[in-house]
């Protein structure tokens, strides 16, 4: 299978590329931006498995991101726990809250689910903002420690943080790849396709939806926790509604329901948006139309666009008999009319 090897070679090149980037761009600022977009990518992957592969668009994920960040911040700053213990606990806490919210939210569908989760996200933001005694309110939480050393490895420098986050991102991608290409992933896709059909082939939709919801909050929480220890300061605005729309933009531009989409979209938008800093909020004049165009012409984003081109190219090579399909289809319509008359 030459296609497979080509793909894995490309993948290895990409990973090596990501590994050597810190030596190529000796600019700390860009390394910082890249690391940050890796963190956002992890959260977008969490959103993708739910919205892209299962068909449930959650707008509460900025809230879960903030829960992860605050859990880590509070556990390290106020409870004084070891960083790695706090990181694991932060993910567990986020997933636990995700489980409780999922139990209620997943009783709704489609637009209602989106609206409900939007409200949940805002409530989470309000709780963080107003619960002064715990979260520090608008003042935020300062002095969050960087990841503590593992043996001889320390994570104080920008480069070591970059590698740490890269590691988490790669792990996320591997986990996502394995889930999507598994029976469990197929089950999720079946639910996205038609919940009714999924049920009649024996899939417990509630159980599976809850699993994927918790899983997606886990990744949102992980990203939040990594963000807290990377920026070392968090405020309630990381859970604000605009963040979820940022995440959604990354996902839609990169390609919803694709494996590479989250990382492609996030890195692209974050870096473009950094380059256009001088335009301030007028940047949105560029992003708005761009997003609209992508959704109209390429509903599966940049990655979907590339795979569409590849497929067209492949079909041209194979000369797929497109006409026969059309003729059978129109035939059958005629026949149906005849039959009705007969009846």
């Amino acid at each position: 299978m030459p296609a497979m090897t080509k793909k894995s070679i490309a993948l290895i090149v990409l990973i090596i590329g990501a590994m050597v980037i810190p030596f190529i761009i000796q600019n700390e600022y860009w390394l910082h931006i890249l690391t940050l977009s890796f963190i956002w990518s992890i959260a977008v992957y969490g959103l993708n498995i739910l919205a892209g592969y299962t068909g449930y668009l959650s707008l509460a994920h900025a809230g879960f991101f903030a829960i992860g960040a605050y859990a880590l911040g509070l556990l390290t700053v106020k409870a004084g726990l070891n960083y790695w213990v706090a990181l694991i606990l932060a993910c567990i806490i986020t997933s636990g809250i995700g489980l409780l919210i999922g139990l209620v939210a997943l009783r709704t569908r489609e637009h209602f689910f989106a609206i409900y989760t939007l409200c949940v996200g805002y409530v989470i933001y309000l709780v963080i903002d107003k619960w002064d005694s715990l979260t520090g309110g608008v003042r935020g939480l300062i002095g969050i420690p960087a990841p503590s050393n593992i043996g001889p490895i320390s994570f104080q420098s920008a480069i070591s943080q970059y590698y740490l986050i890269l590691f988490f991102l790669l792990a996320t991608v591997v986990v996502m790849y394995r889930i999507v290409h598994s029976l469990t992933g197929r089950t999720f896709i079946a639910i996205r396709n038609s919940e009714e059909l999924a049920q009649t082939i024996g899939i417990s939709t509630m159980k599976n939806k809850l699993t994927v919801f918790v899983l997606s909050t886990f990744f949102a929480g992980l990203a939040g926790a990594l963000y807290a220890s990377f920026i070392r300061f968090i405020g309630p605005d990381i859970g604000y509604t605009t963040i979820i729309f940022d995440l959604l933009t990354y996902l839609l531009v990169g390609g919803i329901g694709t494996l590479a989409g989250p990382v492609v979209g996030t890195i692209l938008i974050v870096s473009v948006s950094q380059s256009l800093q001088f335009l301030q909020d007028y940047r949105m004049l560029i992003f708005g139309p761009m997003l609209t165009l992508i959704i109209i012409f390429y509903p599966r984003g940049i990655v979907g666009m590339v795979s569409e081109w590849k497929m067209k190219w492949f079909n041209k090579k194979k000369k797929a008999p497109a006409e026969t399909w059309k003729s059978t289809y129109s035939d059958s319509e005629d026949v149906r009319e005849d039959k009705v008359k007969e009846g």
Partner: protein
Amino acid sequence: MFIEAKNLTKQFGGLTAVKDVNFEIEKGKINAIIGPNGAGKSTFFNLVSGSYIPTSGQVIYKGKDITKLPPNKIAELGVARTFQTTNLFEQATVLDNVIVGHRLRTKSNLLDAVLRTKRYKKEEKKCKDKAMEVLDFVGLTNITDQLAGSITQEEKKRVAFALALATDPEVVFLDEPAAGINSGETEGLAELMKKMVKRGITVCLIEHKMQMIMKLADKIMVLNYGEKIAEGSSEEIMNNQDVIEAYLGGDASA
């Protein structure tokens, strides 16, 4: 007694879609439900296969009351169904579409998938084998790796059959399997239904194409305005005065 509907009634607000229907689906036969548009056929189907919960009445499957079970539990017991419109995942291959059909007979979970455990590998192979087996059964081995979006309408129907068969059912409910395909292809699907019965799978279908039903079905029930007006073999149905009036003899409105 295989599947028995007892006094099934379903009301939607003030409308009674199905009214006090008794019907027995016979094991190893082709059972058909016919009736003019709006007669309540699809509602009856949804009641028996668990998609709707009846307002009153019961559905008994192999002596067990399945009236209030959710559809996925009913599927586990060996009841499969197809829909009028075939909901396939068009960006995936035919094989990929069918593999998930055997999912209900597997136990591996998310963790198995992430860690690629032995159990997972075994079950994935089992599902793939099952998918190949049923695709072979419905005669689609030549297109297993084509995208579901690029196959013909008739092939899509067959994929939907395959998906239902992949659940290892004892009975398959087919909702208008021949809708939207031509007569030659209809013959082919009729053959396939006979083949299913030969394999020991009971078939129950809704169909508009009268010729096909009259040739194919062992037992027919006729619904009109939600009520059963006749039941029996195709000859009995063809000679039944009520049926002729309600359906066959009616003018183009049917």
